[in-house]
């Protein structure tokens, strides 16, 4: 009798205390081996002169100091990336919101429009980039149209003053469908009664937008901007396929330069770039936490 209940208790204790750990053991090991250990190693390498081929040599903060004070290409990359983020964030979400507002007007065939805007979002960036390389070609569709209108051809990807803007345009085209869909869903979740009450009080279209739509969308707007900023700071695929960072570094971004240093066996240096990027993203993640907490 006691033997049975002891074994029963043991079994229960196993089910209560050991089993949960077994259920999460694979993700935990995966997280430690593929995330935490590499993170620490990367931090250590960033303090070393390390090629991956010869032994690492400790250099303290030299990599960071060199990057920020002495490396013109990195500073250019930092600037380029920031311009890319600003271009994308000033146009993408606005375009997304405008489109969502239009689709929210009891439009026929709404789902067909939504599909059209959303199509590029689930297409790989490599695919989007190869398509736009063709469109941007010196003799491509865009320049042919310009030529037939009697205008000058544009060196979309070959002119250093234009290339970054061209990459940003393709990226906005790829991404704003996501913002449209998110805003549309948020708009549809605003209770009708709010608008009806406002109309009874004589509020016009602008007042309704200003005092009902915009405040209701605030959390979604914050979400869209922060996710967008964090994602855009990591821009790589488009640059790799479309411009290879050129011409004359005009489209070199943080992650493209990191990749470039990595390929040139500057592993310590590349790790320092990764940590600078991390620091930038932490600032924005922190801002998101602050902004969303304020609301609650």
């Amino acid at each position, binding site marked *: 009798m006691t033997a049975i209940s002891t074994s029963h208790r043991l079994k229960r204790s196993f089910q209560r205390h050991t089993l949960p750990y077994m259920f999460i053991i694979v993700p935990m090991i995966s997280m430690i081996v593929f995330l935490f250990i*590499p993170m620490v190693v990367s931090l250590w390498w960033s303090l070393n002169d390390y090629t991956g081929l010869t032994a690492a040599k400790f250099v303290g903060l030299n990599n960071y100091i060199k990057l920020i004070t002495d490396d013109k290409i990195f500073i250019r990359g930092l600037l380029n990336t920031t311009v890319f983020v600003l271009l994308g964030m000033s146009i993408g979400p606005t375009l997304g919101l405008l489109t969502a507002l239009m689709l929210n007007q009891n439009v026929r065939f709404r789902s067909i429009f939504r599909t059209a805007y959303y199509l590029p979002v689930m297409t*790989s960036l490599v695919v989007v980039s*190869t398509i736009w390389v063709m*469109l941007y070609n010196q*003799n*491509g569709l865009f320049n042919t149209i310009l030529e037939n209108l009697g205008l000058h051809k544009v060196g979309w990807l070959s002119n250093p003053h234009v290339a970054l803007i061209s990459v940003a345009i393709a990226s906005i085209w790829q991404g704003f469908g996501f913002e449209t869909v998110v805003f549309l869903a948020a708009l549809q979740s605003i209770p009708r009664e709010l608008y009806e009450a406002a109309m009874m009080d004589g509020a016009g279209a602008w007042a309704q937008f200003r005092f009902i739509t915009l405040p209701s969308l605030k959390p979604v707007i*914050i979400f869209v901007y922060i996710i967008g900023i964090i994602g855009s700071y990591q821009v790589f695929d488009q640059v790799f396929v479309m411009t290879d960072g050129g011409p004359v570094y005009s489209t070199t971004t943080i992650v493209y330069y990191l990749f470039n240093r*990595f390929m040139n066996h500057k592993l310590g240096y590349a790790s320092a770039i990764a940590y600078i990027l991390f620091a930038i993203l932490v600032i924005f*993640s922190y801002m998101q936490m602050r902004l969303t907490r304020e609301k609650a």
Partner: protein
Amino acid sequence: MAVHPKTFRNSFSRIILYLILIGSAVMMIVPFYWSVGTSLKLEQNVYSNPPQWIPNPLTWANYIHVLTRIPFSRYFANSVFVAAVTTLGHVFFDTLAGYTFAKLKFPFRDQIFFVMLLALMVPFQVNLIPLYKIMATLHWTNTYLALIVPNLTSIFGIFLMRQFMMTIPNELLDAARIDGCNEFGVFRKVALPLALPGIATLIIFTFMGTWNDFLWPRIVTNSEKLFTLPVGLAQLQMKNTSNVAQIMAGTVLTALPMIIVFLFMQRQFIEGMTAGALKE
């Protein structure tokens, strides 16, 4: 009878609305149409002026070229295999872990979960280089192991599944326990079926993410046998010997499977994408 001015104004603004919507939808579709069209053209007609809106003559030669001369069928098989196995891993590990964090009590549960949330903020580039070194040390570079094993589970997936599992009432789980179900049985027979909409979202996110992933497969493979579609396509586009019509055939082959999946599962895609944003 004269048209009432207000009705006129309303229908006028509706026409403008539709014109803008149709115009922007056309702008979204034209690049896709142009790439399909180009993939069916002869190379000398690719940049012709006036532009060929309908390929003339229409040719399948570019597809035959990329499928036979360049192993695009191999890239395709690699992409399917890697995305399928990775997705399967996520469905099992993320769902089970999500359930455990949502419904089971154990020491340090909340602390572990908090650390995971912090880790969610770490950009992939931070661990990229040491991760590559680990793969090289294990002799996993240029094998499917490097493409699959580090991505079998994700914190984001666990977080997503935890959110879905939290909505399942505890009474249902307790009832199963009283009926003599063991803990894994409770998960498999009660929680799993109830979390199916969440799993659909997880499958979509994972499959799409893996199918479109570029940086990691680009870094851990340099043999054509292991290339996934985006890596193979980028390679094709960089070779100066390849011509535009062939690149577009490769582009269409890379994009088409995702587009077909999307058209069939549109509702789940859009619900999954918006769920995260609106729950914030």
